[in-house]
């Protein structure tokens, strides 16, 4: 159906020669460069600086005390747990979907392709809402849940589903173009040599797509860590139990605990930047291959 958008920042068409032909700007062109840099600085640098300043405004010690309080620690733990789990699920199934998209051909493929992108179109609040419609007290599955004595909404399973949902497309969308690009040649060779399907996947396919995969995985994780709207709706905000890092920030601002809020913002920003580094690292390696 469609090409995969370059939204994921892959630049596989980059030819090394083009890069070398970038010039140093001359004269008025510097104005363009300066403008291009000042714009994001105005958007982001000021606020980022403000956060650091806000977090440290009562001193480093106070900030650390906030970050090591049981509420903050639990919030971070929950965020990381949900993110790891969601990423794991989306990696496995994202790979499957990507393989089916690019290596298989059947009538429903276009539908599949369209479905994958749907989470991008959902506002996170709506995503959380549909989970309540499905698993809440008046939901479709209420009888099943009661029978199994499960708690889904306003509890961790619901939050995990929400997080998985909103971070769903990244792996599939990052891996599919690579798979397409890499092509079937090597795999077919392996098959004709008698290799089993999984062995081929492990030894041939996976290594070829590993940088695209890493890129998709880091995007997924970053998205999961940052989720707010969906877990706000479906989570219930119970401190230390269903309160993620983002919900913690939201509540701390309410509690007038500014240092705590900004400290957590800083913590999340650090995590995000690490993930960003990972993304760029993967992207660069993908280019170099």
């Amino acid at each position: 159906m469609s090409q995969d958008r370059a939204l994921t920042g892959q630049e596989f068409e980059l030819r090394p020669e083009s890069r070398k032909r970038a010039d140093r700007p001359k004269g008025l062109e510097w104005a363009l460069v300066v403008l291009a840099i000042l714009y994001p600085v105005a958007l982001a640098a000021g606020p980022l600086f403000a956060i650091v300043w806000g977090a440290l405004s009562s001193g480093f010690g106070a900030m650390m005390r906030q970050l090591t309080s049981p509420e903050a620690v639990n919030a971070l733990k929950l965020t990381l747990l949900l993110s790891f789990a969601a990423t794991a699920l989306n990696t496995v199934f994202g790979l499957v979907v990507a393989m089916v998209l690019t290596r298989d051909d059947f009538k429903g493929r276009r539908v599949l392709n369209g479905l994958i992108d749907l989470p991008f179109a959902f506002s996170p609040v709506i995503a959380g809402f549909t989970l309540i419609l499905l698993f809440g007290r008046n939901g479709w599955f209420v009888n099943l849940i009661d029978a199994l004595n499960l708690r889904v909404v306003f509890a961790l399973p619901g939050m995990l589903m929400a997080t998985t949902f909103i971070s769903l497309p990244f792996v599939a969308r990052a891996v599919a173009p690579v798979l397409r690009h890499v092509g079937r040649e090597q795999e077919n060779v392996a098959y004709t040599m008698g290799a089993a399907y999984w062995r081929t996947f492990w030894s041939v396919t996976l290594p070829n797509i590993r940088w695209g995969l890493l890129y998709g995985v880091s995007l997924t994780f970053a998205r999961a860590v940052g989720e707010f709207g969906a877990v706000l709706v479906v989570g219930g905000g119970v401190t230390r139990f269903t309160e993620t890092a983002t919900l913690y920030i939201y509540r701390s601002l309410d509690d007038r605990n500014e240092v705590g809020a900004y400290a957590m913002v800083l913590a999340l920003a650090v995590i995000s930047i690490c993930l960003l580094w990972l993304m760029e690292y993967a992207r660069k390696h993908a280019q170099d291959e």
Partner: protein
Amino acid sequence: MNATRAQTYSPASVAALPWGRWSLRAVALIWLGLMIALPLAVLFEHGLREGIVRFWAEITNPLALAAVRLTIFAAAVMTLINAAMGTLTAYVLVRYRFFGSRLFNSLIDLPFAIPTLVTGVMLVLLYGPQRTLGAWLEARGAHVIFARPGIVLALLFITYPFVIRTVQPVLMAIEREQEEAAWTLGASRWQTFSKVILPMITPAIISGALLSFARALGEFGSIVVVAGNIPRSTLTAPVYVFGQIESQNQMGASAVSILLLALSFTLMLLVDWMQGKRGGGHVAR
């Protein structure tokens, strides 16, 4: 349409698949069915449960309409700015070499990594009335936070990478020779850009713009912190839906959600179609 024609498995590989190709297909379909089709179905069922008349009444409710209008308006303003600045940034990154350009390139994806709530908090921190910058602006009558400019600002930050990342690859693929040919024929830099390069990157700009527009339609985490929730002036559609979810009117939430979803999804289909039309970028086999 991708140029990889439908490829069938060679006999050996079909035998090699543990339970036939259907197993993988089934897994993919079940996964997407459960995770995506199911929420979609329940949303539609709930929103349309009481008939099309009720649905229509909900989405034409004056407050809902106002919220949707504001969302579209803010997203549109943001998209225009984003298209212009994104193209500029992509051009600068591809064509020029300067100190820190590689670092800059890496930082572009930062908005993808940062939680939207954090974006909102940062903006309030910087532009809120109590802070120096905010107070300075307020004194001059420029309201940013809890006013529409704040919304556009938040959206700009969040969608910053979109246009850049769709335009960059295309710019890089453009043959340098074409540009140089234009120069040797006496065209100025600007003419080269507008007559040679711009037509070639326009589809990419539009793709990126549409993507950022679609993304902005659903934005919640930053807006809820930064906007004031006053209908018609600062209440966006996702925040309106949030309010409806938490109030008596869950049907209204579903109805407007369906509307938003339809809008976003149409836009994304449009983007797909455009990128498909643009023709192969990826090596075909």
